[in-house]
């Protein structure tokens, strides 16, 4: 159902924004870092996400739906960023410097992850997106629906199909999809400051 808005005071807007900022900042930043592997760029993107959220603060759902909704904004910001040129935000100047020390490490090619990663990258972007929302952000189909802005049933179908296609592709590469290699994500760090 469409949300009903009541008029909030500036103080209430600030309080709501602060609450969201503190509760989701790291999650949103992590979402962006995992997908860009670019700490400095992620600072600019996180600034865009929270600027958009501030502009639509009345639309942010309450409770547990807020986090996937924020991922939905981050997803759109990321897509927008990929379509356009790199933009550097003056808002994120100091944050960008702080993030220079952050590292993002892709999974280790040892333990069979290189092959699994290769198979994963052969999937469509849509399949990879829904699978990473489940596997990286640990969202269920209902929360994935909030991120993607689609019906819960549709998200369920997309997730089911993506899992099936990944399982089939793994079997095609002679990898048993029922087991998971351990010790992933221990490879050489990608230093944001030196990229």
């Amino acid at each position: 159902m469409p949300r009903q808005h009541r008029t909030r005071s500036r103080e209430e807007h600030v309080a709501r924004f602060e609450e969201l900022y503190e509760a989701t900042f790291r999650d949103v930043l992590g979402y962006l870092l995992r997908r860009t592997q670019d700490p400095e760029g992620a600072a600019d993107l996180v600034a865009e996400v929270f600027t958009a959220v501030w502009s639509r603060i009345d639309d942010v759902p309450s409770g547990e739906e807020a986090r996937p909704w924020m991922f939905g904004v981050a997803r759109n910001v990321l897509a927008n960023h990929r379509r356009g040129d790199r933009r550097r935000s003056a808002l994120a100047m100091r944050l960008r410097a702080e993030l220079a020390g952050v590292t993002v490490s892709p999974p280790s090619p040892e333990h069979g992850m290189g092959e699994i990663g290769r198979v994963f990258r052969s999937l469509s972007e849509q399949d990879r997106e829904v699978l990473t929302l489940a596997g990286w952000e640990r969202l269920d189909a209902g929360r994935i629906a909030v991120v993607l802005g689609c019906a819960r049933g549709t998200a369920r179908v997309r997730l089911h199909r993506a899992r099936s296609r990944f399982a089939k592709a793994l079997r095609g590469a002679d990898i048993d999809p029922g087991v998971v290699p351990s010790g992933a994500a221990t490879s050489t760090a990608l230093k944001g400051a030196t990229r």
Partner: protein
Amino acid sequence: MNTVPSHRPGHPIDRAVEALRPTVRGVDGIDPARSPGARELATLIMADPRDPDLARRPRRGRALWAMPVALGVAASVVAGTFLVLAPDERQELIRTLTPAGPPVADIVVEDGFVTARLLRADAEPADYRAEFAEYGVDARIVFEPVSPGMVGELVHLDTDAGTESLEEGGGIEVEEPLGECSIEDGCPAVVRIPVGHPTPVVIGFGREARPDEPYSMSQAANAPGEPLEGVELEGVTVGEIRTVLGERGLDVGFYIAPPPEGAEGYGENEMAVLSEGEVGDDRIVVDVILESPGGVYIELES
């Protein structure tokens, strides 16, 4: 095959994807409540008043642009995307970046049908089409502003074969939410389309009109559920109907009547349009047509 036992919970495929998750290190030290960079970002974002009316004032962009300079940031840095845009462009960008809203429908496949429980009457037909496309059918849902007695009714069922009745609609079934369909509260209709339905489908439901929004469809003003339910319209005088309309809070926008005999400038079957002051109380009413919430027009005898 590789066979390494796993202790991670969840679906096995999700565990495989989880194992591909890049590891982020160093971000724990950035506390959004205390870190200088994160605090500065929050402060600068909240410096924007948010109010669209204020955002239209040209000085806003300059004020925000100036703030990093005041904070000692190098002047050569390009300003944030939002701040260099015109207000309208900015609103459009924000609209595209934030999720459109709750899902438009809950859809399942059951008993050979793609069954959609509609949720939102404010969604675009394309939004519904995108949802249905996931289930292999090409269907759009439209919502037409209608008079109160038609709210929730099926008002369109169009396929490539043309406009059809439900009986001819290729097995499509609907449950009409009679009396319950509005932008504010949603439209709990149910639509069932056979799996694999071969042609595009457009299904329309009547929804409540907004204040002053013209109806795209209406029925007899005295039909059940309509504002003049139970009132005899044909043959009454304008004076009588003016009294009834006044009691029910309805305004007459205009009158139509056959043009005076011998009048020039009218096409065949074209009616003359008359204003309130041009119509006496003794004229005879043929019909009252619902035009918008609170508004009607009246057809007169010659």
